[in-house]
């Protein structure tokens, strides 16, 4: 209080949370009670968000935790591999073929978390191939997994940690996960894109 606050002179103080914690918190705020949430691969942050939402305001939220098939896992501590055995400390475990079957079930998956090597202005995601010709990719990505089901989910929350023009492109080279395609007119279903810093558009 005695010392004036200044960028240069303020004592080096850690914020009481990490940026990942802040991101998880913001993702949690976007989740609603009663939803069924699919967290996909690379899902540590979405899983943290789902658990937080359950504890805060969404006790009836259910989340599917990766290809291992867990539902409402207690996984503790959080681990990076989405199919880790520790996820099976859960309320239920579905075999993967059924998990994929239920991704097509009308109205079942309310919210999905996605990302991509490229994300465009209409929320399309590319995890397949960078370059003008997918048959001769400049950069080959890992592949589609379940991303094409984005068209059937209630909404998709896209979160991207690295905010670079290489990722945020006007138009993806390959639509792995369909967003609004070439504009909202193309795609009547409501979707939501939430950036890592919490800005929604």
């Amino acid at each position: 209080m005695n010392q004036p606050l200044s960028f240069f002179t303020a004592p080096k103080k850690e914020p009481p949370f990490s940026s990942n914690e802040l991101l998880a918190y913001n993702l949690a705020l976007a989740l609603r009670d009663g939803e069924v949430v699919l967290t996909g691969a690379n899902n540590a942050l979405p899983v943290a968000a789902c658990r937080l939402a359950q504890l805060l305001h969404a006790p009836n939220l259910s989340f599917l935790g990766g290809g291992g098939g867990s539902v409402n896992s207690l996984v503790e501590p959080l681990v990076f591999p989405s199919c880790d055995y520790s996820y099976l400390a859960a309320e239920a475990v579905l075999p993967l073929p059924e998990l994929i079957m239920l991704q097509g079930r009308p109205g079942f998956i309310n919210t999905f978390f996605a990302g991509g090597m490229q994300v465009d202005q209409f929320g399309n995601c590319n995890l397949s191939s960078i370059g003008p010709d997918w048959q001769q990719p400049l950069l080959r990505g890992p592949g589609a997994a379940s991303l094409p089901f984005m068209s059937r989910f209630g909404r998709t929350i896209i979160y991207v940690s690295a905010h670079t023009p290489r990722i945020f492109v006007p138009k993806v080279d390959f639509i792995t996960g369909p967003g609004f395609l070439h504009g909202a007119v193309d795609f009547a279903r409501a979707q939501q894109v939430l950036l890592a810093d919490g800005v929604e558009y």
Partner: protein
Amino acid sequence: MEEKQARTNKLRTAEEAIREMVPNPCPVLAVGGMHQQNAPMSLVRELIRQRVRIGRLITSPSASIQADLLIAAGLVEEIVTSYVGFEYLGLAPAFRRAVEAGTLRLVEADAPLLVYGLQAAAAGQPFATLPPGLELSDVHRAAPAFYKWTTDPYTGVPALCVPPLRPTVALIHCQQADEFGNAIFRGSVFTDRLMAMAAERTIVQVENVVRASSLYSMATQVGLPAALVAGVVEQAFGNHPCASHRYYNHDEPHLKDYVQKGGTAEGMAAYLQRYVYEPDSHDEYMLRVRTDTPDSFTSPSL
């Protein structure tokens, strides 16, 4: 942001579950259980007491009294089934009488129509195909609105198809569930899990409720997550006269009696009166069972 609230408790009595969760008439109802096993009879009897009319009844590949009793009560307009009978105990009296009299519309099905139809509904697939050879049976010719042909785009040859079967409500049984609807199968799953995945809404009848916290160490044995279950009805011995795997056997003398006396319309009316309409509780029902066929209802040998 919504207010903090407790997680929804889905426990209901049979009466509440049927009244709150099954529309009347119910466009498409699926009822679980296979042969004499795992039929949710408390829910079935409650459907009859509440006189819920069923536009289309979908069964497992082999149903018995859970379908026959609904037909006996005059509640079923159409049935999609591959088998209604009592296996070694005889034919299904009400089903047989209604089909022969033309008062029940039968969609002749085989097991794959039911299984692939339910899978297609669960998966959001427009239709499913059958393996070549099944067209040699007359079954598909008897239900041409269900079995249809399209072209295999890989070979150009015709392929026989079945449509998605999407129940409005599925009534199934499993041995245990927690109060949120996570459901545990302690024996065969038959098509019961599949019905729940296909249906818009599922009510699960269980032998006993378990604590949610007990599931975390046995999650691979939890067959249905809460998100697929709308209501949980706890009713010990509720499958009687059918069995509950691991909990009790079917009541063979009672079922024999049903098959025999149900052979006439009067006998069936008397059965419905004594075992469905008159008992005002499951305890009263079981008392009548114990009185009428004593010592006939036993635990399994395993």
